């Protein structure tokens, strides 16, 4: 199953009958914005990786190499289409107006999340693989009922997942619900060839997009390093999804970086493999095309470069000055309503820390 491609690695464009018209209809503003998103995400990645190396972040999860699929798909959607990301969708998050500072928060371990999911129609990152695909299905069930009551438009719901997560039972259950209730679900699978150290063939010997057929819906494979094809495929299929026809988009891409900053990919993959994907880099091919087609010139590219550098400096400043969530606040958000044990423990900790010296040996019970 050949992935749909419009933009070849050398920057040449294929005039595909179905998909090319979506690109030809775009103005310079959207085309440039997509470049800007990808360049910003990459800059963020590099900067965050070095912040981690310097001990300013506990962990970083790079999206290096996957910017095109993420940017193309999210640009083709509407602002009110709710997205349920994994933990690697930085290009999508930035596109939704989540600030780099908010993005770093979780990775500095200053909190478990950094933004309001409802404000951005972009859920907080989710680490337990596949779990978020069910939340997405539930959101879509609520949406269906809101639509029936005249409270919502024809939004769609995006469930992001990776090739590894595709093996999780929750993903299967999510697709069953989507199929059974005709939910407006777009499953965006980024097949980046690896789940930490395990190759995609261990998850599936067949294109993941084909799984859709077993659930009775459509699946399409796209070159996930081609921002234009990713845009066009999402734009083409979104209307059907909005009508309640679930869809898989499998973006075939490559995780150029380590799984996380804690990973050592040299233990499980060859440098030849990595090099072969460098030649398919999503950003350089798009830059070549933008320039060749006259959508942007070198002056504009240097402007974007300069903006990206500013972002990097802001990011560093933001990371250093970020205020962490105190344990008191953690106590306060375990429950939405008062809970006896939480209150007792919080008060105990306060007393304990206030009067450490004279309170040794006392227990919670005796103090009351």
């Amino acid at each position, binding site marked *: 199953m050949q992935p749909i491609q419009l933009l070849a690695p050398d920057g040449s464009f294929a005039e595909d009958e179905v998909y090319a018209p979506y690109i030809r209809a775009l103005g310079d503003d959207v085309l440039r914005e997509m470049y800007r998103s990808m360049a910003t995400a990459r800059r963020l990645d590099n900067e965050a990786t070095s912040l981690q190396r310097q001990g300013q972040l506990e962990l970083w999860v790079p999206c290096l190499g996957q910017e095109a699929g993420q940017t193309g798909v999210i640009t083709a959607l509407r602002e009110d289409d709710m997205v349920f990301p994994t933990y690697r969708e930085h290009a999508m998050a930035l596109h939704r107006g989540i600030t780099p500072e908010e993005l770093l928060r979780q990775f500095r371990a200053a909190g478990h999340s950094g933004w309001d999911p409802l404000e951005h129609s972009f859920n907080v990152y989710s680490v*337990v693989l596949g779990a978020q695909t069910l939340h997405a299905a539930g959101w879509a069930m609520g949406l269906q009922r809101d639509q029936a009551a005249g409270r919502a438009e024809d939004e769609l719901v995006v469930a992001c997942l990776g090739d590894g997560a595709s093996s999780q039972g929750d993903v299967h259950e999510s697709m069953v619900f989507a199929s059974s209730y005709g939910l407006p679900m777009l499953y965006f699978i980024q097949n980046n060839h690896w789940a930490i150290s395990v190759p995609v063939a261990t998850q599936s010997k067949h294109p993941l997009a084909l799984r859709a057929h077993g659930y009775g819906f459509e699946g399409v494979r796209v070159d996930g390093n081609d921002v234009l094809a990713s845009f066009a495929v999402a734009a083409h299929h979104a209307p059907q999804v909005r009508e309640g026809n679930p869809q898989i988009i499998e973006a075939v891409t490559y995780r150029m970086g380590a799984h996380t900053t804690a990973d050592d990919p040299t233990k499980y993959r060859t440098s030849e493999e990595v090099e072969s994907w460098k030649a398919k880099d999503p950003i350089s091919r798009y830059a070549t095309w933008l320039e060749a087609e006259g959508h942007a010139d070198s002056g504009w590219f240097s402007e974007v470069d300069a903006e990206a550098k500013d972002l990097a400096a802001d990011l560093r400043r933001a990371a250093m000055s970020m205020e962490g969530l105190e344990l008191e606040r953690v106590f306060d958000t375990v429950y939405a309503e008062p809970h006896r044990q939480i209150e007792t423990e919080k008060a105990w900790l306060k007393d304990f820390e206030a009067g450490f010296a004279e309170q040794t040996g006392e227990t919670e019970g005796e103090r009351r």
Partner: protein
Amino acid sequence: MTTSTAADAVERPEDREPKQMPLAKAITAALRDTMADDDRTLLIGEDIGALGGVFRVTDGLQAQFGADRVIDSPLAESGVIGTCIGMAMRGYRPVAEIQFDGFVFPAFNQITTQLAKIHNRTDGKVTMPVTVRLPYGGSIGSIEHHSESPEALFAHTAGLRLVTPSNAHDAYWMTRQAIACQDPVFVLEPKRRYWLKGEVDFQNPAPDAFTAQVLREGTDATIAAYGPLVPTALAAAAAAAEDGRSVEVIDIRSLSPLDDETIARSGAKTGRLVVAHEAPTFGGFGGEIAARVSERAYHRMLAPVLRVGGFHMPYPPSQEEHRYLPDIDRMLEAVERSFSYDR
């Protein structure tokens, strides 16, 4: 999709006279009254529609409110809880029915890593008013996986609340309070007591669902129990009275939060406390109560807190469950044993 007005035909709860009804039907009434009041309350679960659930607790509700509000789910427990989370994010108040205690485990991940944590993970930005109805406990003569008491696993999970009614009146009001709560609440339904009749007073709410209640006053010892064993504890206290022992009975009602104050007060008063539950005692919830009471009432206790519960084994074949489950005699034995520590 339907927004039913059939509910209007039903008498408003505040106009209804107190009524004798089985515990299961009190839950049905609570679900019906809540759904009539709030069109954001939805039910979802396996076989809860046309069949009304395997215990008929949702009987008639799909006919009344439509299939969009009483949702027959695919056969997927993780899916049931996972989609409740998504619906709650969108402002709904889903009530999930898990068919049997033993089948909650496919949803364990969604419950513990997601449902319980989302309010905390989002720094309070997203609330999870999800109710999980879990029929639990044994003594129903069933096959494997249909008689379990997994409450300690959930009580141990921060972010969840757990209540368990022991009578029809509590069943009605606790269910309503659970659905009204902004946190995820488990309502552990004692399925062997589903057909136990009691009066439901629709005009006078039961005490706060998250508190314990003294059901019978006594002076010599206390038995604290919850859910299915509360009627057993009351019967044990009645039997003890015939032997001249005055036994106080506490219905624990809420496992999280735990009203340890009420339990410890009774322990301090009688000096002897027996905690009873069907779940195995090893690593069980009774140990938590014992620890808390001994911290709070150490100098007033005349004996260690004793536990009566299941053994450290998978729930046995039900032919043998009468020897596994705590009964009146096991409770009385523990009460007597607590007198053996007298100096």
